[in-house]
């Protein structure tokens, strides 16, 4: 096991649920409850020193009981090491703690996750949509149940075929 994963496992046995090393990346799985303490330790503790935030993103697995996976990618400049952390949240309560108080750069990243996937961040200073319009109420575009085409303004035009309803019948005489 990677020393960082081992150390995290020892210090936060109730939060860390597992770890994996693949393709040169270290991935640590966390529980939502108590994850903020892990992040704080990862940033502040000289043992870890993950001072650089690379990204916050999310993945949708509609078939799983815990539907959404929030993915955090951190980098340690002094130790030159990258770590990926993952938290699973259910669709009924898609809420995780915001890490803006630790990495200020997370503010826009978390807003984007909220905008695209509908995951809420507890304690975020300004949780609004960021890429979609403020008043957009069609849902969250990067969820797997959001269609690629045929939702939104297209539906306002009666002459545009609706993709989810199938194509209109061909006119008579055509092959």
């Amino acid at each position, binding site marked *: 096991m990677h020393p960082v994963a081992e150390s995290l496992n020892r210090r936060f046995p109730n939060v860390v649920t597992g770890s994996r090393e693949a393709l040169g990346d270290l991935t640590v799985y966390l529980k939502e409850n108590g994850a903020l303490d892990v992040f704080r330790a990862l940033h502040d503790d000289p043992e870890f020193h993950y001072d650089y935030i690379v990204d916050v993103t999310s993945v949708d697995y509609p078939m799983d009981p815990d539907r959404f996976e929030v993915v955090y990618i951190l980098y340690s400049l002094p130790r030159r090491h990258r770590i990926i952390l993952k938290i699973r949240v259910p669709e009924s309560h898609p809420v995780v703690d915001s890490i803006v108080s630790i990495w*200020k750069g997370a503010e*826009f990243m978390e807003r984007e996750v909220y905008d695209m996937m509908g995951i809420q961040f507890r304690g975020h200073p300004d949780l609004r949509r*960021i890429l979609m319009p403020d008043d957009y109420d069609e849902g969250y575009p990067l969820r797997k149940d959001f269609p690629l085409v045929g939702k939104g303004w297209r539906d306002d035009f009666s002459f545009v075929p609706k993709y989810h309803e199938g194509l209109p019948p061909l006119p008579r005489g055509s092959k």
Partner: protein
Amino acid sequence: MEAMEKEKVGSTTAETPTIRREITLSTLRQAVLSGLDSSIKTEQFLLNMGPQHPSTHGVLRVLLDLDGERIKKAVPDLGYLHRGTEKIAEYRTYNQIIPLTDRLDYVSAMANNYAFVRAVEKLLQLKVPERAEFIRTIVAEMQRIVNHLFWLGTQALDIGAMSVFFYTFREREVLLDLFEKMCGARLTTNYYRVGGVEGDITRDVIDALYAFVETFEGHIKEYNTLLETNRIWLARTKHIAVITGEDAVNFGLSGPTLRGSGVDYDLRKYEPYAAYDQVEWSVPVGHNGDIYDRYFIRVEEMRQSASIIRQCLDKLPEGPFMTDDHKVSFPPKGRVMHNMETLIHHFLLVVEGFRTPPGDTYCGTETPKGELGFYIVSDGSGKPYRMKIRAPSFVSMGAFDHMARGYMIADIVTIFGTYDIVMGECDR
């Protein structure tokens, strides 16, 4: 500079004999320093800037909370160029996504292609032929020069120095012509492939590149004579949009924006890829973290890029420019019609693309604007299950409010410029 000007006003008025005038000026100064409290009656107002504004580098909108001409708060409003690249990518095979990445940062398409194919190669654990690695390094550095020339021209144009633009675009044109020779396109290049590059680098391109790097140093000196001691340029860039190294790291800034603050984070050095560990070069780092330092770094990076190109051309090995693993790359066309297995490979690559093993990976690449990362989740099919683009421009905009506060409205434009922001990448 603003503060320095205040200083001058203060010192000249101290010599004037009338006491009454001095008092008013000192109250004014006090008020400015303490963020304009009750001593002077001013009006606070909200100003909308963009999305249609000639200096916002595309369709960027900012809401400015102003106190006189000073910025109290700046709220960027993004998404005017949001095209849903990440969503579209979930429905495309990996090879079909490469042209999509051209449209992210449309002034340095090669760098985007590279960042994407590197992420896919990491997922496939694919080894790229050595000649391809060198060609990729050369082209990536050409793109860096193209991008920085474009940046230098437009940044100077934003500030009011028109002539720099003509000079930088003259050299940019030379490189864009070479891109055209290599892949048929100047901007949306679509040149990199998973496993190599689309075409080999030819003798005339090599000769033209040698000639370019030979004269380029002189051209950089030419730009510097226009800017380095230009009073307006100095006044507009020195001590503007200062950010400390600690804050810059905390905000996740990358590229020249981060290195201007004295942090030497460059993925080409931190996690060497391609041929970067086989050539001699250095990472320029600033001290003050202001716009001038970031300008200085970009100019220095162009020099380093030219040097990397020259060294790579000297060492350019012979061999294939594309992997011979035909599960990933197209087999030679001549063999497709004669060999059953090659025909199947060709057919499968066109119809469903190559399959990647299930799993996920993050791969960051140092593009001219900073760390462009692709986080790809694969479910074992020929299309990514989820693809997240970590765009440096988007992350930089997160620090915009922090960096713009306290400066003047006119500085807003220079701060956009110093990020080297491109909205195609920011909104994706």
